[in-house]
């Protein structure tokens, strides 16, 4: 559920893009975990994600879930960052959904994500925008 407590505890990842680098094998985990799925390592160093990446796959949501009914059509992509970490994010500032494509270069920007859910909390996080130049 989109509760105030959840919004608060997720600030490091949502606001600051903090990930965990496994000190054993170097795998970067976003969100952080207690055990590395690659090597079983238990020791991590906090590392901030790079902001540049490309679209692995995407869609445009036309029938939204509760909490996003004001935001359609809603483009969403799976983005692979330059360090190999993948994350699901909205794509912002899309004038024409037909212009989206797999492989499109994007950059993560801090944006408002949702605001009309039952918790009454304005949720912020990162969205992808088309990278220029």
């Amino acid at each position, binding site marked *: 559920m*989109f509760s105030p407590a*959840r919004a608060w505890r*997720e600030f490091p990842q949502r606001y600051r893009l903090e990930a965990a680098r496994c000190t054993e094998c170097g795998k970067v985990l976003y*969100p952080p975990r207690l055990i590395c*799925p690659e090597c079983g390592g238990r020791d991590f160093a906090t590392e901030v994600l790079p902001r540049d990446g490309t679209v*692995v*796959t*995407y*869609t*445009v*949501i*036309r*029938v*939204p*879930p*509760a*909490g*996003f*009914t004001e*935001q359609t059509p*809603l483009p*969403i992509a*799976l983005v692979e960052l330059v360090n190999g970490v*993948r*994350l*699901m*994010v*909205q794509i912002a500032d899309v004038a024409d*959904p037909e212009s989206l494509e*797999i492989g499109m270069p994007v950059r993560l920007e801090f944006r408002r*994500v*949702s605001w009309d859910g039952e918790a009454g909390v304005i*949720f912020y*996080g990162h969205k992808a925008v088309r990278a220029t130049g």
Partner: protein
Amino acid sequence: MRDVAVIGVGMTSFGELWRTPLRSLWAEAAIAALGDAGVDRVDLVTIGCMSSGLFTGQEHLASLLADELGMAGVPAARVESACASGGLAVRAGFAEIAAGLAEVVLVTGVEKMTDVDGADATYALGTAADAEWEGFHGVTFPGLYAMLARVHMQRFGTTREQLARVAVKNHANGLLNRHAQYHLKVSVADVLESTLVADPLRLLDCSPVTDGAAALVLTTVERARELAAGKPVVRITGSGLATDTVSLANRGDLAELGAVRLAGERAYAMAGRTPDDIHLAEVHDCFTIAEIMATEALGFFAAGDGGPAVEKGLTDLGGRIPVNTSGGLKSKGHPVGATGVAQVIEIVSQLRGDAGQRQVEGARVGMAQNMGGSGGSSVVHILEVV
């Protein structure tokens, strides 16, 4: 391990059943299955249900529903693996009999989905995705499968028309199933002109929101032979269960359903069968792309050949391997917790020769493949006439 047989099947019609509460849907299916089996006492009740809490505000189903049959006191357990909850309930019942913990098990699945509006139903189904790292951004289930479809189309050249052919086939089959939610013939053009839900998936690529329940009675093959009264005995010869990452961000290859492949391999190994031995299959076509990807993961077709196969009619009734003769989730309906049980019912009906106009001639080995979320879990069962 003891050999396990299905001795009774029963289900409600699937649809928007406004008049009927969850407990009555469930009881109708359970009573029908017990009647079909000719038993009135069971050692265990298993219940597959994804989210009665979000859909109806009711949890604690195992006790509630056992009591609804006047069986308070009986061991009962609800299991959950999103849209694979029904298949998991079958496996839970199978395991108890195989292990000798129970002699007769009532396996059930139920979902009552139409007491909430569309946005709330979409939200409830979306909880089968990674709520914190996918759902937070507003992605829906059609959206996740749309992302998989786009990768499959780019990698293998799967076409929009091939996706549409899955819906056309399954609606044609559903016309022959009196329990189906939709008795509606659709054309490729109908699918391609239907409303966009999540590009490239359209309304007629999606399974519907449905109320319904389904039930089986399982026992040992030995006991089944005593109770058979001339009916064919249908044995569950293989059961496979597997997981994959829930989050697509952590998934290895987005063009493959890894959990389906693993669950299939485990079921084939237990049954001593290969894909070529399967005469028909019910697969989890929650979206048209899902059927194509499932038929590849189960080994019926090579990776990338699932789209051309449906286009050539290989999965039609009368084709090389008929898929979703019941109409599938697409046309029969998809009450998520009931689906995995209803798939097994279709296979049992076919193996008994009870499938009427949609009967696959000579069917002796069938498969049911149920899937949770965007492929985060899958359950596969192989059933055979013995």
